[in-house]
């Protein structure tokens, strides 16, 4: 994997279809045209997270890095609980992308709303089937897909602004008609626009040069900042409230830019984003579950491979759970709740990464760190407090209204994870230990001479 593919992978993983809805949702918190400001601030915060992930990944350049650095920085039960809770973000992103693409396609084809459910199930069935057959998006295709999404979004946003026929109204006044608390909530949502850029660290074993991962993440943050900033300003400038709060604001943006053809362009772009999300999401989550099961921390059934060496149980389970979540979202129209859950979990994980970086500096001072965060003693605690606060804010706010639903969803997920780790896992481990104890060593004992 070369530098270009690392950049497109990092950007592509972050640039899910949910990005458009999160960007449109962010507009409700600040004075329209100044929506780029919270995105820029969130980008600077993402740079902090980049530093922590960069240092941790340079210490453990492996797909299992998250397990390794969390295990060494804190109690393994807490590490596992956080990791399992974090994994739910992947399910949410897969589910929301299926929902958004399905809804966008149903709208583009002028089909009734219930047809979107068929698209959702169909898309996820195709994704599961491709994964089970071991079909993955090759590096070159990933490069092309991400480039198409980024460039098309940039061009459509620029054309929409140019065709609007009037100047920006409040580009420098985010607080115009809003409170500072709204701006903070917008920044919390803005963090979500960058979320998953760090998933590229799971490709550490595939890169030709280890430092490519850190550089790739840095460039990806820059790209995301520019594209999301421009798209958000264009949306706020050209779309009305109904269009902004719909499930497919990007389609309206396409229409604002180049008329009806823009609807099809953006429907196509939305479908391409799913390619990246389904590919990256299914592989990352299923391989992590597989690895954890092989390690003995999940039931062994989750480590079963099919004839193409694909862990089929996690892939099917992810497909089923994602379908159920996507259909619930389609029925309840609660996609902004998903955005808030994702934003809160992502901020939480950025805070955890800061904690791990600090803790490992003292616990493992001699472990080589080809990449080091400067001023970690200052930036680390600052990031922990800041991301912690953003996580709390994001978890109790939906569409600029107090709503504890995201917090409740996260709490349920964390409680289930903790229950598994504290009550079920010891049994799983005892069973595995008994199996190993009953299996005699095959290696012949060494003779005295050796």
């Amino acid at each position, binding site marked *: 994997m070369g530098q270009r593919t690392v950049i497109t992978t990092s950007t592509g993983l972050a640039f899910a279809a949910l990005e458009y809805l999160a960007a449109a949702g962010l507009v409700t918190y600040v004075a329209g045209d100044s929506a780029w400001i919270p995105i820029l601030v969130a980008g600077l915060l993402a740079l902090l997270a980049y530093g922590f992930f960069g240092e941790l990944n340079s210490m453990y350049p492996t*797909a299992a890095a998250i397990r390794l650095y969390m295990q060494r920085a804190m109690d393994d039960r807490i590490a596992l609980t956080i990791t399992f809770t974090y994994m739910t973000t992947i399910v949410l992103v897969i589910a929301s992308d299926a929902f958004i693409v399905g809804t966008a396609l149903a709208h583009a084809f002028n089909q009734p709303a219930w047809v979107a459910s068929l698209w959702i199930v169909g898309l996820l069935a195709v994704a599961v089937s491709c994964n089970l057959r071991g079909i*993955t998006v090759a590096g070159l295709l990933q490069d092309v897909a991400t480039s198409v999404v980024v460039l098309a979004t940039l061009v459509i946003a620029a054309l929409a602004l140019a065709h609007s026929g009037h100047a920006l109204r409040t580009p420098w006044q985010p607080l115009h008609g809003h409170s500072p608390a709204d701006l903070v909530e917008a920044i919390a949502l803005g963090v979500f626009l960058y979320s998953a850029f760090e998933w590229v660290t799971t490709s550490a074993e595939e890169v030709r040069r280890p430092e490519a991962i850190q550089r790739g993440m840095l460039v990806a943050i820059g790209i995301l900042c520019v594209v999301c900033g421009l798209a958000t300003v264009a949306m706020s400038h050209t779309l009305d409230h109904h269009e902004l709060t719909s499930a497919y604001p990007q389609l309206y943006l396409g229409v604002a830019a180049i008329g009806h053809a823009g609807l099809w362009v953006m429907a196509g772009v939305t479908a391409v984003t799913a390619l990246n999300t389904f590919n990256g999401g299914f592989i990352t989550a299923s391989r992590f579950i597989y690895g954890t099961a*092989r390690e003995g921390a999940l039931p062994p059934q989750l480590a079963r491979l099919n004839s193409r060496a694909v862990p089929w149980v996690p892939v099917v389970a992810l497909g089923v759970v994602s379908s159920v979540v996507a259909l619930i979202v389609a029925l309840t129209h609660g996609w902004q709740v998903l955005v808030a859950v994702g934003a809160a979990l992502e901020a939480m994980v950025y805070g955890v990464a800061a904690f791990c970086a600090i803790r490992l500096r003292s616990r493992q001072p001699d472990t080589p760190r080809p990449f080091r965060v400067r001023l970690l003693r200052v930036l680390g605690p600052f990031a922990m407090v800041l991301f912690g606060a953003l996580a709390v804010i994001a978890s109790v706010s939906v569409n600029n209204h107090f709503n504890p639903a995201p917090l409740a969803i996260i709490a349920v997920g964390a409680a289930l994870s903790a229950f598994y780790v504290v009550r079920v896992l010891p049994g799983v481990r005892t069973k595995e230990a008994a199996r190993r104890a009953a299996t005699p060593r095959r*290696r012949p004992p060494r003779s005295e001479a050796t």
Partner: protein
Amino acid sequence: MATTEELCEAFADWRARSNGNPRLSKMVKGWDRVIHFTTTDTDQGFTMRVQDQLLSALVVGYEDQPDVIVTGTSEDLCDMFWGDLNPSEKYMSGEIALAGAQQDVMRIDAISMVAFLDQ
């Protein structure tokens, strides 16, 4: 530390069990690869090939461009070949490292699983 002879003996056992496993044979169909093993404590290198659904004999030294590189202590690699050690556990703890495409890594893991679980 395991000697070269011990590693080769362990690998021969692993190879016999892997090549005699019809499920694994199917899993490596069309997967012709060169795998390098590197020991961190004895600084030794070994080469294994997978060709036509069969594992080759272990060659001492590096040959050809590798698709996957497996790195670990000689003891861990020896125990892995004998099937006495859970390679995933060692991988997840960072004691065994792999470099290569994810699909290739999964296949290597599948082969090592045959030895560990004797499936």
